[in-house]
């Protein structure tokens, strides 16, 4: 899976609630039907954290070490909104071209 796709999926599942690494992958599996590979998932988590789009939910350092529960940040929500709106526009155009009314 493309790294940007993995980042979008991570942001999408974190938009609902904070989750730790393994739970993020389980939520992605529920959403798409398949899990991300470890390289894709943790690569996406690292990139998103480095860009300040997600952050640790636990403020206590010891808790961070144990769980690494992550939450989406304000810039993360904004990035996700922009990307999803763009995808929705592409989706509407594609469905229209196929003669299918969007749900």
């Amino acid at each position, binding site marked *: 899976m493309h*790294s940007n796709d993995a980042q979008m999926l991570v942001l999408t599942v974190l938009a609902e609630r904070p989750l*730790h*690494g*393994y739970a993020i*992958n389980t939520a992605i599996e529920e959403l798409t039907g398949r*899990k991300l*590979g*470890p*390289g*894709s*998932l*943790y*690569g996406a*988590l*690292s*990139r998103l*954290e*480095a860009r300040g789009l997600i952050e640790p939910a636990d403020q206590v350092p010891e808790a961070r070490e144990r769980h*690494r529960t992550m939450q989406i940040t304000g810039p993360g929500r904004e990035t996700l909104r922009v990307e999803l709106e763009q995808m929705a526009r592409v989706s509407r155009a594609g469905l229209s071209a196929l003669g299918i009314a969007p749900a």
Partner: protein
Amino acid sequence: MRASALIAGLYPPAVRERWGTEISYEVSESGIRSWPNALTGAVRLWLHPSDWPETLTGQTRRVLAVALFAVTAVTALLMRATAPSDTLTADLGHPITSLWLAPILLGIGLASPLPRRHAFRRLATVTIRTLAAPTAAVLIMLLAANSGLIEHPTGFTNAALLIYYWATLAFTALQLCTLVARAAPVATLPTTRRLCAALLFIGTGLALATGQSLLTITRTAPHAGPITVTLTLGLLAAATIRAGHDLRLRQMA
């Protein structure tokens, strides 16, 4: 060590500190079919240092400085393994075929942590502690070579001396990289701009070395040794230039 822990250990330190346990768990649970994805993920992160979250300020710069010294150490060992060569040299007597070394030395100069004014004593202590063992190993090697006791070694003695020689070189290279890592807290780390330039200079030097090494292959009958060296130099060149380009993009952003 389990394969899953080994794979998790290949990730950059900042990623390993955050997710190492979970990467290892997921690789272990998914089995061998997850290895290509996990390994590709590690390589991709090493090639994109701008994607590393930082646990401590300057962590990315410290890791990159150590990585650049490691790349140079591997190149030095490769050079020693291929010597003598007509097309790829590293001495003042052959300036044209040694030209590839200039950008690498410039890059190393840029990537070196600089000593702080009030921390010379601590830096000297760290240096002595780190380099004492390899210095002793090199001195023993030189004494053995110049003592006249071993004139024409054969059989087991020859093999043992050869192993000792290469182990000493590898140990010295490792300790030099360790010194850069240990010196970081008591030295001024290179800025991201300097590291970016260092990566690109070292990458350019390695690309030149790859081209010159390729000439050796085309001039002589192809052997596994020179082909392996050329491929390794080419991969190191591509990796350092890619990482330098990634840092440059982050600076421009």
